């Protein structure tokens, strides 16, 4: 039943690198301690052909720039204390995700688009929470669907009160899909809108405006047109002033991440991603430098974007996105961290000691987000701790994030894993647990024991401590790994995605994990259902002369 128009094969791979001087859809202006990010989507510059981004509607390309802006703000403008997001159009703030784009996209593109935009919204919330940059959405006009979801990701929402501009989540009544960027969850969970009112709101295509929007807690502030700019600036000032002064911070320019593309390979300074689409596998190799590098924060500042730890995580982040968006046929990724585990632990000691420095702090939080992106990637990951690897400290997280961690335990080879201080809470997963806690969900005492005696863990002990899924000796290693890899890569990618999403996140939930787990699962189900995407489905009919026809049987 599903109508799938494959994205044009001729389309070039998505490049996730951009910078403010190359933005097509946003304007970033920093004035002292207040940054203003203005949405001004160029209708003609969709990332794929076939649709126009009218009325500040967005596609993946628009969100890539938003993510870049949020990231650069942290590093390049650390003196900023308040971010205002507003729109450049008259009467419209943002119309949400572009419907034509969704209609013409194949399923995987829709899913990855939603996932990426969700991550960007969470990063925006993390900007407030982890980086102390207060966020204000200044809605200068109609705010629909994804536009309102973007606003929901800000701490405060100011809506223009012109008796016309409404906030709305019209997806259910208009398109028979869900708001795909956490809207439903954030309305009741974050803004604590009463659930019956939320029910009314989410089924009312025209949305809610003015006083009612305020009464229902859908927005925090109203301002008439004539005082809108003034009120926006006043709130921005108030928010900025609620954060201690940070004007002494000197930004670190991020520049462009460098890599080289070859056949079946992308090579970064500290990372190599290689793939074999026929085998449906990829290898992610992460390389530590020989020396741990900075001893003092000043040295990290001086190194800037060339600080290996930052550069490495930027590369991993890019590699994960490349895998997701540009390499859909890859089913299984093997991960190796190559280097000296002592370097990893020594560097972690530096991070721990100087986490009070804003740059160190930001870099650790960035690593946290990259690791979360790995947890949320719809690929199987097998970590391979064989000779010359260094799954230690921060880099143990790659092993813990993987679905399985195979360790080479052989008298002829020295293989060490390592537990460090940062494994104890600096890299939480989206559901709030550390990867150690998630791994030993039934045995919290093991977590405590591991953290009590940080340091290197020999391969033999790794098995005993439960860090290894299986320890193999040299005789078995190559054959066994080959069989495991081939077996895994042969299974249904859909079933594996669902299975992994269940197994990776035992235990509690947070709003963030609810957004990813609950909402994306439902959304991805609805995205497959004829009522949305069938020939007579609402998403297919929207904007055409035809009305949708639903199959009214509930499942």
């Amino acid at each position, binding site marked *: 039943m599903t109508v799938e128009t494959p994205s044009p094969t001729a389309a070039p791979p998505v490049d996730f690198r951009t910078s403010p001087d190359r933005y097509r859809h946003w304007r970033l202006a920093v004035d002292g301690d207040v940054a203003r990010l203005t949405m001004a989507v160029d209708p003609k510059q969709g990332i794929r052909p076939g649709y126009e981004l009218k009325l500040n509607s967005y596609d993946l390309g628009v969100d890539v720039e938003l993510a870049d802006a949020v990231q650069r703000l942290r590093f390049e403008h650390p003196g900023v204390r308040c971010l205002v997001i507003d729109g450049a159009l008259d009467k419209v703030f943002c119309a949400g995700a572009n419907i034509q784009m969704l209609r013409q996209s194949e399923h995987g593109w829709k899913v990855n688009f939603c996932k990426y935009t969700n991550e960007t919204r969470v990063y925006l919330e993390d900007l407030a929470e982890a980086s102390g940059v207060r966020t204000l959405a200044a809605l200068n006009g109609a705010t629909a669907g994804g536009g309102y979801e973007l606003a929901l990701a800000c701490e405060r929402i100011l809506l223009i009160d012109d*008796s016309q501009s409404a906030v709305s989540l019209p997806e259910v009544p208009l398109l028979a899909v869900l708001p795909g960027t956490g809207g439903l969850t954030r309305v009741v969970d974050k803004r604590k809108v009463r659930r019956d009112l939320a029910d009314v709101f989410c089924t009312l295509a025209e949305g809610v405006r003015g006083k009612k929007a305020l009464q229902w807690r859908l927005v925090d502030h109203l301002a*008439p047109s004539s005082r809108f700019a003034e009120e926006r600036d006043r709130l921005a000032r108030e928010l900025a002033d609620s954060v201690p002064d940070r004007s002494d911070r000197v930004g670190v320019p991020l520049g462009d991440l460098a890599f080289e593309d070859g056949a079946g390979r992308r090579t970064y300074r500290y990372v190599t991603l290689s793939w074999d689409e026929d085998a449906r596998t990829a290898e992610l190799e992460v390389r530590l430098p020989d020396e741990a590098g900075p001893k003092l924060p000043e040295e990290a500042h001086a190194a800037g974007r060339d600080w290996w730890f930052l550069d490495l995580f930027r590369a991993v982040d890019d590699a994960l996105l490349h895998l997701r968006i540009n390499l859909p046929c890859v089913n299984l990724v093997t991960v190796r961290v190559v280097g000296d585990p002592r370097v990893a632990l020594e560097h972690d000691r530096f991070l721990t000691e100087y986490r009070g420095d804003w740059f160190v702090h930001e870099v650790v939080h960035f690593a946290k987000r990259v690791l979360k992106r790995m947890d949320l990637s719809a690929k199987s990951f097998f970590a391979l701790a064989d000779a010359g690897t260094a799954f230690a400290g921060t880099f143990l997280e790659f092993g813990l994030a993987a679905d399985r961690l195979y360790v080479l335990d052989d008298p002829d080879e020295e293989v060490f894993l390592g537990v460090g201080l940062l494994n104890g809470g600096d890299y939480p997963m989206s559901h709030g647990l550390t990867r150690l806690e998630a791994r030993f969900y039934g045995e919290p005492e093991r977590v405590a024991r591991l953290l009590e005696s940080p340091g290197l863990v020999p391969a033999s002990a790794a098995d005993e401590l439960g860090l290894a899924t299986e320890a193999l000796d040299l005789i078995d290693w190559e054959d066994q790994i080959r069989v495991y890899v081939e077996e895994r890569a042969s299974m249904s990618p859909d079933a594996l995605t669902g299975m992994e999403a269940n197994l990776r996140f035992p235990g509690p939930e947070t709003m963030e994990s609810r957004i990813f787990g609950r909402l994306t699962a439902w959304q991805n189900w609805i995205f497959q259902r004829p009522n949305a995407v069938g020939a007579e489905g609402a998403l297919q009919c929207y*904007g*055409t*002369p*035809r*009305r949708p026809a639903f199959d009214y049987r509930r499942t």
Partner: protein
Amino acid sequence: MTKIDYSSKIPNNVDLASDKRLQRALERWQPAYLEWWHEMGPSDFDSNEVYLRTAVSVEPDGWAHFGYVRMPEYRWGIFLEPKEADRRIPFGDFAGQPAWDEVPGEYRADLRRIIVTQADTEPASVEQQRLLGHTAPSLYDLRNLFQVNVEEGRHLWAMVYLLHRYFGKDGREEAEELLERRSGNPDRPRILTTFNEPIETWLDFFMFTMFTDRDGKFQLLALAESGFDPLARTTRFMLTEEAHHLFVGQTGVGRVVQRTAEVMREHPDSDPREHGAIPLPLLQKYIHFWVSSCNDLYGSEVSSNAANYFAAGLKGRAYEEKKYEDHRALDESMVIEKFEDGRLVSEEVPLRNALNELLRREYIQDNQKGIDYWNRILDKYDVDFEFRLPNPRFNRKIGLYAGSHFDPDGNPVSRDEFERRRGEWLPTAEERDYVKSLMQPVLERGKIAGWIAPPKKGINGQPFDFEYVRL
């Protein structure tokens, strides 16, 4: 608050006297309406008696009942065309099914939106015109202004009736907001941009009643086909009144044209301005301004809302039942010119998505008749000038051509050229000031201002020097 005597105060054919729910809604709304009229209606003429027509029934002899009345005491009535037996939904996916007597839940929000948007224009125009009474060129024109005003007020009542009767609490809230928005107020603007444009002079008023009220006519024609029967019946009756407004506009501009032609004949070698008339090229610029603004009222050339409204049977095409055979309009298409990369490109669009444009094209044809009428006046005076409608691409703020620039013939021009030549195509501030300077009141019986010719006939068979307004 005094109790309303429904049968005499509010002439109606909706059995208001026995509809408790409606009475209760109107009890709240009616005082607010009168307050709005007092504050925003024609300024300073509350106590004057005006020779007005009042609709007292929908019978042929009942809809135009003439007599002197003070405007605040005008009997704003609620009238629907009599119900047709066994009426069917005339178009869309439900064509042929029985028309709806109550709001279908599925389309409640869309219908409310349609009605509110239409309703909002009615008080808006009254607000736009509220100061014109002070500069009327004659008692005859003053009376026509007031007639238009009270009937726009009645049209508001008609729409509010639908909101009160069929849309419950939301409808009542929307009805209240109709009295809270204010034309031209940046904080509480009227919904459509044209209805926030100031109407500073009688020339603007005539242009407005010619071109903007004609948009109203076409919107009403499209709604008169609605499968929601009360909306169809209400708008059909409104159309009978709208005709007079269009008459005021077309003949009003025509009389200005005539006066200029007369002056040009008497003084062939001088600028008509020297003799207090409005030059023809300046009238052409006013036409450019108002027509382009009104072209925006139809919305975007390609519209999913238009398609949805048609598919659902809410808003049809003008003369749907009379003019068309295929009332589903699902397989037809229309060619629309898009402007891409500096070039006009023809594109076939499914007809349902192009219905805004279809209605606009019919409107433009109807406008042309008025233009022809003015040109015939010029012919009569042997004046070598021809009024023309601007190309629909000219000076647009909404739709496919918004953001690009075109000359009045529709040729693409650069933004710079448009700005440089703006004064050739649209009235300049000085020209507007000149027209404003002509706006001196002439309120003696039988007299008229020098920039406009008297009408051929008076109202309701009365002579021109009749006392249309008792001052």
